[in-house]
């Protein structure tokens, strides 16, 4: 059987985290009443004119610089003309002829662990459209223009990916860079990051590209992986049957794990692009580029290296902590307050990950403050609480961001380090458990564990297990 190679290129839309829209002063906030965040500009009223939000250019430049792109010094906007009610002017202001960034790349690891460059063809800026709400009861549709004019960048890759794994690696890499920049939260499920997959197959060893299709409506990494696998098989099957792959746009239905054609190349629209006459060209100076470069944050790879050398935490830990910027920020802030890096790392990797998993949360959703984590670590460092209490307190920190010092005080959870009082209790435990005492004396070291446990029970968990152990051994000789 012939083996086939999959060739994939991506078009990734990212919604930028500006406070206001790309061409007017309206808020970009989610969740408002329909059309609450609108004005004459973003509803396409006659006589209104767009004015470019500078922050959009700076975010686009920052993403471009972080992905090794050339910044276009003389960039322009173009109009993409098409009629649809979510698009109030019936043209979208985008960039075709002179996009702001070109010729970049990011590096991913391929399946053998080697670095592989995925080239970026261009990054351009554009505006988002509004949303249609269909009222089936009334048999009519309403338009909400709150999203109209929200800034987007579109990152167009070259067809350099060969598998779903590479696609996911590339997307994760992009997401991490953009999140570290603070340019977007990049949530696929909420649509702040959207990926369209261009895919073709060819017989292994050939140079010529096959006919490609474009897949839309991919809302999660899992959906992307499934869609790629499905489309690859569909195309191979067509070729094996002696049929042709049709160049078309397809829509993925993740519930049915099936895609269906939306439009073919023949009925592709003519967007009649031309330069947007209402906006002046964007001229980018060396100084501006330098300013953006200077303000670039430390990205993951550098951060990871620094954590290993500066905080002496294991590479594995550093890898996990830097997986999202939010987690790395919590780590660094907690350490900067004075907590031991390895202990902070242990909390983030152990208990934090466990709780995230059980509560089905993303790391971005962590709400506790570094101050409270640092306080908790200090309580354990000072021997004021034992580890089982610490675990209980951390859970409260994680869910409600409580102050551990106050909490321990209020609930009387402080560890009892008073040896005199403990000795009395332990004597009683010994008296009540002759069997275990015998076992221990007969060489069963494990029996002491039971006695420690009984003592903890008697002290309602507040005793210091180390001290119990010491006293027990003294008393039992």
């Amino acid at each position, binding site marked *: 059987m012939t083996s086939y190679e999959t060739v994939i290129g991506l078009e990734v839309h990212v919604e930028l985290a500006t406070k206001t829209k790309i061409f007017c002063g309206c808020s970009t906030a989610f969740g408002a009443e329909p059309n609450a965040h609108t004005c004459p500009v973003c509803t*396409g009223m*006659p*006589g209104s004119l767009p004015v470019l939000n500078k922050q959009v250019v700076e975010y686009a430049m920052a993403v471009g610089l972080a992905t090794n792109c050339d910044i276009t010094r003389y960039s322009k906007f173009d109009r993409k*003309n098409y009629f649809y009610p979510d698009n109030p002017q019936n043209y979208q202001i985008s960039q075709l002829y002179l996009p702001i960034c070109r010729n970049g790349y990011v590096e991913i690891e391929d399946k053998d662990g080697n670095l592989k460059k995925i080239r970026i063809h261009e990054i351009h800026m554009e505006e988002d459209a509004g949303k249609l709400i269909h009222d089936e009861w009334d048999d009519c549709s309403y338009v909400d223009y709150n999203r109209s004019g929200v800034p987007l960048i579109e990152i167009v890759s070259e067809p350099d990916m060969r598998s779903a794994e590479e696609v996911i690696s590339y997307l994760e890499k992009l997401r991490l860079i953009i999140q570290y920049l603070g340019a977007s939260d990049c949530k696929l499920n909420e649509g702040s990051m959207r990926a369209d997959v261009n895919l073709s197959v060819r017989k292994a060893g050939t140079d010529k590209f096959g006919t490609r299709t474009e897949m839309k409506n991919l809302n999660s990494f899992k959906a992307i992986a499934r869609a790629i696998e499905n489309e690859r098989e569909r195309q191979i099957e067509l070729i094996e049957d002696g049929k042709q792959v049709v160049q078309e746009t397809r829509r993925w239905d993740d519930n049915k794990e099936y895609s269906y054609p939306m439009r073919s190349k023949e009925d592709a629209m003519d967007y*009649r692009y031309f330069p947007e006459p209402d906006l002046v060209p964007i001229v980018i100076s060396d100084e501006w580029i330098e300013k953006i470069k200077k303000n670039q944050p430390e990205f993951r790879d550098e951060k990871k290296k620094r954590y290993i050398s500066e905080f002496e935490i294991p590479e594995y830990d550093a890898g996990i902590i830097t997986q999202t910027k939010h987690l790395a920020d919590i780590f660094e802030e907690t350490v900067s307050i004075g907590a031991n890096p390895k202990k902070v790392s242990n909390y983030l990797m152990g208990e934090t990950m466990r709780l995230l998993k059980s509560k089905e949360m993303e790391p971005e959703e962590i709400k506790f403050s570094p101050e409270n984590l640092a306080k908790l670590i200090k309580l354990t460092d000072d021997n004021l609480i034992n580890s089982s209490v610490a675990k209980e307190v951390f859970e409260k920190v994680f869910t409600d961001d409580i102050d551990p010092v106050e909490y321990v005080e209020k609930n009387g959870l402080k560890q009892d380090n008073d040896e005199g009082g403990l000795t009395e209790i332990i004597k009683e435990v010994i008296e009540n458990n002759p069997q275990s005492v015998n076992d221990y004396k007969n060489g069963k070291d494990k029996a002491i564990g039971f006695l420690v446990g009984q003592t903890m029970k008697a002290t309602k968990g507040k005793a210091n297990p180390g001290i119990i152990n010491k006293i027990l051994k003294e008393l039992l000789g």
Partner: protein
Amino acid sequence: MDILDYTAVELSDKIKKKEVSVKETVMAVFDRIDKMESELNCYVELDRCRALESAQKVQEKIDNGEITGELAGVPVAIKDNICTKGIPTTCSSKILKNFVPTFSAQAVINLENAGAVIIGKTNMDEFAMGSTTETSCYGATKNPWNTEHVPGGSSGGSAAAVAAKECYYALGSDTGGSIRQPAGYCGVVGMKPTYSTVSRYGLIAYGSSLDQIGPLCKDVTDCATILEVISTHDPKDSTSVKREDTDFTSALIDDVKGMKIGIPKDYFGEGTDKEVKEAVLRAAEVLKEKGAVVEEFDLSLVEYAIPAYYTIAAAEASSNLERFDGIKYGYRTEEYEGLHNMYKKTRSEGFGAEVKRRIMLGSFVLSSGYYDAYYLKALKVKALIKKAFDDAFSKYDVILGPVAPTPAPKLGESLVDPIKMYQGDIDTISVNLAGLPGISLPCGFSSNGLPIGLQLIGDCFKEKNIIRAAYAYEQARGKFVKEDR
């Protein structure tokens, strides 16, 4: 002297001296409108109550010293494609009938801050597409000098209203000559400033890269005064330029000694009427007598201006007019099946023939496979035309020529042959392509009693040169007013 015979600046002076009230003025204008409108059809929207209310407020502000400027209390008419908050603004098109803007154009806000009282909205060619004010959905405006003739266009309502004393001055818009040409046909002064001088915010776009708002008025003094008020930097318009030299009234000087004036031979070609040529050259002679250095020269490329203009303006228009789709505002067809049918029927019924012609032309020149051959080539021609003017202005301070090859044609003559109508724009169109300022003022009559317009063109941001030349000519020419028959 009849109150209606004052210029805007003269009237404001009388108002400030309390010789006449704002209310009296507004009532006089409405009386005049009542008398003339049935014949001329200058206005598409009038509201006496609103104007009188506004007069009252302006009077109070003048009385308490809040408003002191040269236009305080003067009634103004606004072209129907310039947004006025709360007052219908329809571009004289069925598709925008009953559309009421939620905001005013920056130029209108500036005038209101200066104490202007808005009388109403003036008739125009639909979406400013036309040279005669005949493509309006409200019917044609007539030329006050001879009602069998057109007033010119597209700001024909504004020009005719000023000429007929139905207002003291008006705002128009000029994409290819739409202020200057009707000013010439109606015997009033009209000016298009340098592109980017007056904010386009609130001007319903036709050809965005060419459109400018400007005044139509009774004399050059009014023209400089109005332009000074409406020329402000506007952050809402990205193409608006911050200028420090908008004190245009400082150029009202009766002195052209040593001023270098060039007359392009290309502006007196085959199609140019003999009487027009004579009147314009006589005006040049007047300036020469006053000490200007006048000579003829070859501007070149003039014949390419018309195809370049109609390509670029139509391309931009085809996109600018996409928003009129029956979804959000304006006209929507009565019966339809589904979205696309609604779009199709609404736009077929809502737009007139000339607008549809330009939308089709514009869509064609932008379509894939034709973009390079038409639109891109037109942009190259535009750049060459700008360069030809740059060369000319390295030698001359002012370029002088006719504003149109003929006086106002008869009603109904132009629309039968659109190409011929487009060719009538030959004297004004390159000024828009090059972004230059141009002023039009009357310089004589044809044998059948129609006004002839003189056009003075300046380099970018050199409005003061043409205002000075126009003012000096006007002083020598004397009053140019239409007496009632």
